[in-house]
């Protein structure tokens, strides 16, 4: 069962610094994959499929805990702690203020180390969409950093 460590990395990238939630998401994902049964052998890219199942599981988990707030492109950062701008926590805080679609893609790229193609397979987006979301998200991060440097 070597897949779950990578799933845990992706789960923590999406959920942030929450090991328990990430473990729960990975466990639920593995149970779903197990219940797939023989149909799993017909999947050509099981790793990407597993990540997509994890992503769905995490989204459901977040929706159960927090109401869905659709963020538009014009975000407003109410308050960011004056911490080290070169720290991972600060970067995570910046990313958390991005639109949801950009957040997920940026987190999978920056914290889970996934390539654009892997992100596309996991999210069901096209490579072009992923590239566009990465571009917009990274540019927005740089703009927000300029405000605090």
């Amino acid at each position, binding site marked *: *069962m070597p897949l*779950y*460590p990578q799933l*845990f*990395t992706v789960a*923590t990238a999406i959920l942030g*610094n929450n*090991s*328990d939630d*990430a*473990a729960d998401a*990975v*466990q639920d994902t*593995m*149970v779903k994959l*197990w219940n797939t049964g023989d149909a799993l052998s017909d999947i050509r890219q099981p790793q990407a499929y597993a990540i997509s199942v994890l992503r769905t599981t995490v989204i459901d988990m977040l929706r159960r805990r927090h109401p869905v707030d659709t963020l538009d492109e014009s975000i407003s950062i109410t308050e960011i702690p004056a911490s080290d*701008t*070169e*720290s*991972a926590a*600060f*970067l995570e805080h910046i990313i958390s203020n991005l639109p949801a679609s950009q957040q997920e893609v940026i987190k999978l790229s*920056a*914290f889970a*180390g996934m*390539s*654009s193609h892997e992100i596309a397979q996991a999210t069901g987006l096209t490579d072009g969409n*992923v*590239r*566009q*979301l*990465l*571009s917009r998200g*990274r*540019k927005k*991060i*740089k703009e927000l*950093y*300029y405000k605090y*440097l």
Partner: protein
Amino acid sequence: MNIDTIRQLLASYYDGSASDAEIDTLKRYFTQVSDLPADLRVDAAIFRAMASTQPLPMPADLHRRIVDATIGSSRRRLFVRWRSALSAAAAVALAIMSGLWLLKSNDTAQPGNTVVASTTLSPQIAPDPLPAQSIDEKPAQQVATEPVEIVVRTVHSRATKAQAKPHKRAGYREITDSVQVVEFTSRLLAKLEAPVEGAERGIRYTSEAIARINDPLGSNPSED
């Protein structure tokens, strides 16, 4: 590394087209180089923040939790099914054995007293108005040639209390000899097997007829 190369890589990065290797190159550069142009300081902060991200340690019990939730759950369900099936089978076997035991305990047949036509619990209990036949009075050949009316009835009482009820129909004869019982039994079986043999003959005739229909001229090449 040439600073112009870094700027090109950054352009690819913000365009969303940088590869993993190119992003790793940018991370290494910005974490190792401190003297940077002013326009690259924000980029340096971003890449240093990404490089400082430490992966969270995976819980030590996550593997066990996953196994319990998947394989362990399936094994438990299978175990419950097997246990239920074995319990049901044991209950059925116990019921059958109990029934057989009760049946056997009610049947107090003793050697020499077993009959086909009726059961006699004790040779002493014979309130039968019809004369009882013994082997000394009736030769076996005469018994074999006589038409026998097979009557089956069951006595449910125990040997100490039961009294065989006399059968009132004509031709009834109470058998108390085991040899006669065996003989009657074989004749009964012969009567039962006769229709079966007839059925088998009928099936054989039907098969031969079908074969003739399918190949009326036969398959013997010497006849051509």
